[in-house]
């Protein structure tokens, strides 16, 4: 009897949560903004790739005949990267958002089972992703006429794109069910995406054996696409590992949804350090009470917000910080030496450079997510109002809230300095020529760039975070804006150059405008030489100094924005002139 009523209910309203999700998304402006961003990025990047292909063919129609496969391959690869970039951001907040609003309990009180909740949330975010993938269809139509594409290849590409979306969505959902906060889920999802999806493509350049990368590639539909595009049995077989991983991720997500629905914060690392403290204190009875750094913890005399920000984390105390640094530093240093020693050519530092690029990505992701979250988290937890009742000025609140971020930058300084140091030392002592000359300047310029960039991103993300109402929105908006900031100037300049509107090598040095993107100088710091793009014989250090000056200026502007407008952004009444009484005529009209 009960079963019949349930079936009837399901038949009447088959997927209530999915319907709610889709209705909300269809009415939300953000859905369309992201869609447009995705479409513009897809079309522009594809246009640039297509222009290269046109150029290779000498713009001759006959030379382009049969090249449809190359165009399809470019488009599909772009779509894979689109999935890796957009889907974790869209999916990782679905469960954590409910947790943060404390509405997950209500959801679980309904007659929806864990599988139903999970599936409906899953499909609710996959539908917009599929509409994004669909945006590339007109491009397929435009180059299909060139020939060289079989229908089976289009079917294979579509299937693998869908599979990739299912996979990325599944593990992002799993992390959303595992993590307590959206920020944690977002960062974890992106890191996992980088390791799981992009890693297998980069692994052969980092590891000594290709077996591991081949094994991981089997789980990655993007790698499967690179191996086989012909369709048929081979693609079906190659898809099985990825399909299996989707099922496993969803099963784990379902498990975490129940077991980790109401998990309090544990701070395992902090607990571990405290247990170490207790052990060392007992051990001191044997050693005679040697204390290298006395513990001065207690209640704060000043800066209470900053005190709270740092003491609730393992980075709160100097001795904890030192332990953490040693924990990171020793294996990192050995790994860096190992990477340099085992370079293929023995004459460069390509692997180390790869690691530095990854480090840049991870550090930016962590800093932006953390800085965007500092105010947004207070707002979501509804503790911001309490904070605002204190007599602390808004500017001070923001400044003190950011102290946790500075600690994080301090920790990130360790791997950066290690890598920069090893690369600089290697260049100076083992590589000849220009690398040797550059080796001495490399460390100070790289370190300065890192400090300026991370501080600038932190203030920028904080500014974005203060203007957003929810944590998810704050973190995702900040991440997307930073990504666009890094990519758009470079793309725009390349596009203008490609279409002949400007010439990057011309007498007017348009290349200077590429410094609008923070990403421009990082490959140059790592050894890429821009030729005469910035002017004949213009010294490299001049370019780096100019870049540092420009981004320091931006850092100052963002900081100023956050500090001067803190009260307004935090929602505190801004002291100003008392409005005078309206004129009599207006009063009369009102009457």
């Amino acid at each position: 009897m009960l079963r019949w009523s349930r079936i009837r209910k399901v038949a009447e309203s088959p997927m209530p949560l999915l319907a709610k999700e889709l209705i909300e998304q269809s009415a939300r402006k953000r859905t369309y903004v992201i869609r447009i961003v995705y479409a513009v990025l897809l079309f522009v990047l594809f246009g640039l790739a297509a222009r290269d292909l046109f150029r290779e063919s000498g713009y001759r129609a006959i030379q382009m005949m049969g090249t449809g496969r190359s165009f399809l391959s470019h488009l599909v690869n772009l779509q894979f990267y689109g999935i890796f970039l957009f889907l974790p951001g869209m999916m990782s907040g679905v469960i954590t958002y409910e947790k943060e609003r404390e509405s997950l309990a209500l959801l679980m009180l309904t007659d929806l089972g864990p599988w139903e909740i999970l599936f409906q949330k899953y499909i609710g975010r996959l539908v917009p992703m599929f509409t994004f993938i669909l945006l590339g269809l007109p491009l397929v139509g435009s180059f299909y006429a060139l020939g060289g594409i079989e229908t089976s290849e289009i079917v294979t590409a579509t299937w693998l794109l869908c599979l990739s979306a299912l996979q990325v969505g599944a593990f992002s959902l799993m992390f959303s069910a595992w993590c307590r906060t959206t920020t944690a889920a977002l960062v974890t999802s992106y890191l996992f995406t980088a390791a799981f999806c992009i890693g297998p493509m980069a692994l052969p350049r980092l590891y000594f054996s290709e077996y591991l990368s081949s094994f991981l590639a089997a789980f990655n539909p993007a790698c499967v696409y690179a191996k086989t595009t012909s369709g048929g049995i081979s693609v079906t077989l190659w898809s099985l590992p990825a399909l299996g991983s989707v099922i496993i991720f969803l099963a784990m997500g379902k498990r975490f949804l129940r077991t980790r629905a109401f998990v309090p914060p544990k701070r395992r690392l902090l607990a571990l350090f405290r247990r170490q403290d207790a052990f060392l204190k007992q051990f001191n009875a044997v050693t005679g009470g040697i204390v290298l750094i006395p513990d001065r913890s207690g209640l704060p005399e000043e800066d209470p917000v900053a005190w709270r920000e740092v003491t609730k984390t393992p980075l709160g105390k100097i001795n904890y910080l030192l332990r953490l640094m040693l924990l990171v530093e020793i294996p990192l240093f050995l790994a860096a030496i190992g990477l340099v020693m085992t370079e293929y050519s023995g004459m460069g530092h390509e692997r180390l450079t790869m690691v530095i690029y990854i480090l840049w990505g991870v550090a930016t992701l962590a800093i932006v997510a953390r800085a965007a979250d500092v105010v947004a988290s207070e707002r979501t937890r509804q503790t911001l109002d309490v904070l605002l009742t204190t007599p602390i000025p808004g500017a001070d609140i923001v400044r003190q809230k950011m102290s946790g971020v500075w600690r994080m930058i301090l920790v990130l300084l360790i791997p950066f300095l290690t890598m920069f140091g090893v690369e600089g030392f290697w260049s100076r002592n083992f590589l000849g020529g220009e690398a040797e000359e550059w080796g001495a300047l490399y460390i100070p310029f790289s370190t300065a760039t890192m400090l300026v960039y991370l501080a600038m991103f932190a203030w920028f993300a904080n500014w974005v975070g203060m203007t957003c109402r929810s944590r998810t929105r704050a973190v995702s908006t900040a991440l997307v804006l930073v990504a666009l900031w890094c990519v758009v100037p470079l793309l725009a300049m390349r596009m203008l150059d490609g279409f002949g509107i400007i010439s990057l090598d011309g007498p007017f040095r348009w290349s200077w405008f590429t410094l609008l993107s923070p990403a421009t100088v990082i490959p140059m710091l790592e050894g890429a030489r821009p030729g005469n793009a910035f002017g004949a014989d213009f010294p490299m250090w001049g370019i780096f100094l100019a870049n540092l000056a420009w981004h320091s200026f931006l850092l100052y502007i963002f900081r100023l924005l956050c500090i001067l407008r803190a009260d307004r952004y935090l929602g505190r009444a801004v002291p100003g002139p008392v409005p005078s009484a309206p004129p009599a005529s207006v009063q009369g009209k009102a009457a």
Partner: protein
Amino acid sequence: MRTLIAAVALVAMLAAPASALQIADVQWGFDGHVVPDRVNLLTLRLVNETGVPFKGTVHLIKIEGAATYVGAPQAQEVFLTPGGTRWIQFYTWNNRSEESWRLSWGDRIGRFSAGEDLQKQPKFGPPARVLLNEPGSLLASRARVITFPEDIFPVTVSATDGLWSVIMDHPPRWEPARREAFLDWLHRGGIVHVIYGPDGRFPIFAGDMAFLNQDKDRYPVGSGRVLRHKLRRDDLTEDALVDAGCRGLSLESSQSGYGGIRPEEIFFTSVKSFTRAEHPWGIIFTIVVAYFIVVGPVNFLLARRWRDWRRTTILHVSVVVAACVLLAWLGRRGLGETAAVNSFAYARPVAPGVYDVTQYVNAFAVSGGTYTFQYPSPKDMTPHSIFASCVDEEAVKGVIRNGPEGTFEADMPLYSERPWVWRGKMKGPDLGLEVESWPNVEDPRGLSIRCGGGFPEDIMQAWAVVGAKLQPLVKQSGRLVAEQSNEDFTNISSDLDENRRNLRYNSYSHGDEERKTNPAEEYGKMVRPLMGWAVGGTGAYRYRIIRASKVEEAGKAVERQEPTVDTHALSGDNPGDSIDLFVAARCPEGFRLLRNPFGREMGYVVYHVRLLKP
């Protein structure tokens, strides 16, 4: 023992295949050599040794690498009575020496079809100088120079590229077509040496060959020359010919900086490059922007009004599909507008207003199918069409039928191209050129040529090769007059190297936009390589007059200084005795395809007129 006998019998059976036809003789060109970058003659003597008549089609194919065949097969209808024999002729375009060719008969065409490989392989050589032989004449055995049977002289001037000069000691017995071909060849620039006949007197020619009876040692006929030598067949040796001013030609292969240039590489690459998509980029960009607006803001506004995710999703999918269909249609339309035939022609007059034409053609199809290419057959002249597919990389699905009203049938898939070379006689304007003042060989700036009524109004370029100089000309009030500056002809060699570099490294893309808007300029770049090829070769292969290595100067034997390019090698003239005039203009109507299924046809022609000093 029994096994051994069976094996021998099996081998004997396999070694002697039961074949309908047999190739009894193979004759490449006129003297056993083929000329690079030109149409060559291949003469085969077929024998039917079976007891049944053979009636069917034979195909000549080129075998290359692992492919069944390369290029397009040439077909010819053959009938042979039992035990009968006959000559058949094909026209080949040879890309290299030692090519493998096969004559196949039966339903299948290819390496493993019924047929026979040609036992003689072609070898490159200069255009030939041959003594014409009467068939079956006993005198042939007395000749000490290369002879050629007159009964297999080609029936069209277009097949005589490999013939440089002819020595005649008797009036040949030719049917009108062969006679016309011979006269055309002579008017085009051939050299005829008339020597004593067996009776010790110059032969007497009749009919339209009676002009050979003139009692002069040397006189012009059209662009050709007739020379009379008081020599008998028995006295005819290489030294005697050289003494009589009839020097031979040699072929040199040049492996210059870019491996030697083949003119067809330049011409085909250029005519292919005119095939380009003409997409309406303005409309396409507008559609893309409209697409962004509809999938973004418009969809959002409608979603706010409808509050129904199904309708917004359906709208999104509909917009995407509509944009896909629209862009696909525009893409196809853009390619569709490129369907065209582009050609570059080289024409030498054989009579007033009649030209022996070589055309480098490229056709681009936007719909798949079997296309038949044919050129018009002008009235009051013997028509003959020779096609060559000129490709060594692929097997062309199709067939070439050379001869009167010759055709080239080719299967062209969707969005594909088909290049070919065509040779034949065509009617064009009578240029009516006359030299008003003969220039100094060292400084030809005094040259002036009067143009006839049929001379094109708009010409692209005009050049004169005088001695070793290359003199640009301009048209002024019905005359071609020399410009103030000129250059050495050898500069063309560096042009060719530059072209080669462009071809190798695809740097033609620099001039994309100009080429799109100004094809005349791109055609103009092909004129100088063509001139180099026409006067004796300046690329991978070039011709030299055979000279003594040492000359007497002031009573001493000194090393001869070889010129870099023999600009008058093919004319056989001394510098200053003739002018090679080149005029580039748009192709006249008569030079176009008989039926053009592609709609557009664009082409330029370079007229090459050799003006001889009286």
